């Protein structure tokens, strides 16, 4: 017999492989993939209008998923399909399935996506009941998935895109834990939030193109969709609909059950529309669902959109807070270890809880013996609610503990702001501090001071009382709280009287605070002038009636010259002056005008001796004559153009060189010998006075 008789026909398949164009060169491979880029199609799923297949992208040599239309008989469907492709493609986020390419093959639209291995969240949760070894038995692992989904949706919302069909089945988890949100087929664009490129897609959204959803009207997946996605409510759909669905997913993550169910489709829709679902802890009392997470879930799943979280970020933050509370210290700890850490942190409460728990177990054990079933059930019910109340209390306490840890940071910030007279910030920080930690007595005292400075005397009293100290300001606050006018402010005379009282009891800081607060208000110019005048007299302890205080609102020039008694003028903070004349006063420092945007300043014949305290960047003209100033170097960083140094102690004219902005200098005749004057650079004009 010839050997040919034994030939194996199976080998002939290699003839075809060998016969096809050379497959060894990558250049040829890529070149040949031009016309028939995708091959080896295998059906994966069908859903809605789409057919999903896996295939090989011969150009890139990888497996991808291709979506095509099931029926290409309606141009509107083609548009809708391409919209989904475009919309999904615009979302580039690690937790959103990426679209690789979009195209038409003989008018048949298609798009390719990443092939996602692994399982969807729905399947993982279903399998939890049977698979004892799944790492997702651990709630924290499940929450990690949820946080990533929140990230994806938060990102999509920031791009003005809402998913509208969030459910566990649309969340794919790879065996390495990658989380991808898929199926953006029902997604919509919020024209107001999206960017230019996406506006093209918006035109379609005014008309509902795909009626081919669940029943032609309902769009979304009953069980996870928001009440407003049924047609039975009046609320508009929007980002809040996704937030509801996220809440429903959280529900499933907590309870391993669907939140919204019904015996019939109609009932399910009705339950959805009415937001009728059990509390997670009631549905699964066996799972010990954390109180705080249940609260998050219930808030996200409120019937009224405005009652839900305002953003996915807010929702995520709550989960993160819970997650961090455990994981940062417990780090993937088992439930037992996490409990241990919890007990360590909350020894007393936990001990109490343990005692209660033991007591309850004991009581339950004894009653179990009772044959009276009815009675037994009633007792059990009571115990359970008792246990639950206790657990809720522990959870709350626990949260307070977490917050307390954050409080000191806010307190530091509040103190810093208060010390620099930033009363708005100080108030915000101190409020947060006392909210987070009601036990910080110093914080209450500071809160009292801030209220006092703002003339909120009742609130000040309350805060001082909580500080536990018998504050000397309480009587003053009590005395003045009845004297407030309709704007909630004391009359200027009353305020000055109060400031005086503060000084007398040694509270000079409160004096300054009151003044600061008053000046930082938007006072009418007449009121400001009146207040300034009074404070100036008071602060400088001037009893006389003579006072030179002239303000021209037109030129914004303030003339205080000749007031020999004037030493302190802090009350000029925020005074709307462009130029001030302090000549012939007892002013000794520039600190008083530190924050004023003045351009001209006259301090001639005053007691100023140095310029270091002068830091006004707006100052153009400075008159220093007849002072003891000798060193001009501090001016070199300012923008002064005209400088009067006649009759001063200035010796070194070279210093003028250092002031780059200087254009004109005024000297008195004979102040410097002629050869010294040559040191003045040419750019500076020299003027002489007698």
């Amino acid at each position, binding site marked *: *017999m*010839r*050997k*040919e*008789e034994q*030939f*194996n*026909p*199976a*080998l*002939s*398949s*290699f*003839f*075809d*492989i*060998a*016969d096809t164009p050379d497959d*060894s060169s990558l250049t040829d491979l890529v070149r040949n993939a031009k016309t028939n880029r995708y091959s080896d199609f295998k059906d994966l799923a069908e859903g809605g209008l789409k057919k999903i297949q896996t295939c090989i992208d011969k150009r890139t040599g990888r497996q991808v998923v291709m979506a095509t239309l099931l029926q290409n008989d309606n141009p509107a469907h083609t548009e809708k399909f391409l919209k989904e492709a475009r919309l999904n493609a615009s979302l580039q986020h690690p937790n959103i399935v990426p679209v690789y390419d979009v195209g038409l093959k003989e008018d048949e639209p298609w798009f390719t996506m990443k092939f996602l291995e692994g399982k969807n969240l729905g399947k993982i949760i279903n399998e939890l009941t049977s698979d004892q070894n799944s790492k997702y038995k651990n709630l924290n692992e499940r929450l990690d998935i949820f946080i990533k989904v929140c990230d994806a949706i938060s990102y999509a919302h920031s791009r003005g895109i809402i998913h509208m069909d969030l459910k566990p089945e649309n969340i794919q988890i790879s065996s390495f834990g990658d989380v991808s949100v898929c199926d953006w087929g029902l997604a919509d664009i919020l024209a107001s939030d999206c960017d230019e490129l996406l506006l093209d897609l918006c035109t379609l959204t005014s008309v509902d193109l795909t009626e081919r959803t669940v029943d032609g009207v309902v769009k979304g997946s009953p069980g996870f969709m928001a009440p407003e996605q049924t047609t039975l409510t009046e609320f508009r759909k929007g980002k809040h609909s996704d937030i509801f669905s996220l809440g429903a997913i959280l529900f499933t993550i907590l309870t391993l059950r669907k939140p919204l169910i019904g015996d019939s489709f109609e009932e399910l829709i009705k339950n959805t529309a009415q937001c009728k679902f059990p509390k997670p802890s009631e549905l699964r009392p066996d799972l010990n669902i954390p109180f705080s997470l249940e609260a998050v879930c219930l808030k996200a799943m409120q019937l009224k959109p405005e009652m839900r979280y305002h953003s996915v970020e807010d929702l995520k933050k709550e989960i993160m807070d819970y997650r961090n509370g455990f994981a940062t210290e417990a780090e993937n700890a088992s439930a037992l270890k996490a409990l241990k850490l919890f007990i360590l942190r909350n020894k007393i409460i936990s001990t109490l809880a343990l005692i209660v728990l033991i007591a309850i177990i004991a009581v339950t054990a004894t009653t179990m013996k009772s044959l009276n079933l009815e009675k037994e059930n009633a007792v059990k019910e009571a115990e359970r609610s008792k246990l639950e109340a206790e657990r809720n209390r522990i959870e709350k306490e626990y949260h307070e503990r977490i917050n307390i840890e954050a409080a000191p940071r806010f307190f530091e910030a509040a103190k810093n702001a208060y010390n620099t007279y930033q009363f708005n910030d100080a108030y915000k920080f101190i409020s947060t501090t006392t909210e987070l930690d009601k036990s910080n007595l110093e914080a209450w005292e500071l809160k009292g001071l801030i209220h006092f400075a703002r003339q909120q005397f009742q609130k000040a009293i309350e805060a001082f009382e909580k500080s536990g100290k018998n504050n000397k300001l309480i009587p003053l606050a009590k005395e003045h709280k009845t004297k407030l006018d309709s704007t909630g402010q004391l009359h200027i005379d009353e305020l000055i009287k109060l400031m005086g009282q503060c000084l007398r009891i040694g509270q000079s800081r409160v004096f300054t605070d009151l003044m600061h607060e008053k000046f930082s208000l938007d006072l009418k110019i007449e009121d400001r002038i009146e207040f300034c005048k009074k404070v100036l007299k008071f602060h400088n302890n001037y009893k006389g009636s003579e006072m030179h205080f002239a303000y021209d609102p037109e030129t914004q020039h303030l003339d205080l010259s000749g007031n020999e008694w004037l030493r302190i003028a802090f009350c000029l903070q925020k005074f709307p002056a462009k130029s001030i004349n302090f000549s012939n006063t007892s002013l000794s420092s520039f600190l008083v005008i530190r924050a004023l945007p003045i351009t001209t300043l006259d301090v001639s014949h005053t007691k100023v001796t140095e310029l270091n305290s002068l830091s006004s960047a707006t100052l153009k003209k400075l008159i220093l004559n007849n002072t003891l100033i000798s060193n001009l170097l501090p001016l070199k960083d300012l923008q002064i153009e005209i400088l009067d140094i006649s009759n001063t102690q200035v010796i070194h004219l070279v210093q003028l060189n250092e002031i780059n902005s200087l254009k004109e200098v005024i000297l008195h005749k004979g102040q410097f010998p002629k050869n010294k004057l040559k040191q003045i650079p040419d750019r500076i004009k020299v003027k002489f006075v007698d």
Partner: protein
Amino acid sequence: MEELHTRHTLLQKLQIRQDDQTWEDFSRYYEGYIYIVLRNFGLSVEDSEDLLQEVLLKLWKALPNYNYEKDKCRFRTWLCVIIRNTVLNFHRKKSTKNSKQNTNFEDIINKLELISEAEIDHISEREWKTYVSNLAWENLKADFSGVQLSVFEASLEESNNAVLAEKFEIAESSIRVYKMRIRKALCKEISRLNLELGG
């Protein structure tokens, strides 16, 4: 001479000059194919061996007149038509000789006559592929170890690497590498042979 050797297929060489050496090469390579096609037309082993010589003789005579146009008709299709006609003649002769003994020949002839061009094309293609692939496989056998060859042969029946790995008690990755190596070598050899034979 050298140029002739490399540039032209065996077939082309034979058309240019029918020397003994070229003819020997040609018949050595083609007789297996002719034989297997003859068997395909339903002949016994003995009859096939007999007719094989007849077909070769016909070829020897017909080849100089064969107009080689690859696009129009492949040589192997043309060859199969000759084989079919040879078989047909064989049966006709036999039927006149033995008309009284066996009436079945009429049927066979009818059947053979009914075989269309397309069917001949199909048979010639199918058998050619098997033939060249197996020739290539035989040429390769010396280059690979016994295990590799066994694994590859088994892989023709069983595509699951894991099953093969268990059967041969070697790592799955090794199975994959063996298969890939032989596959590449086989494809290369098939290409070479196909080109050389110019069928």
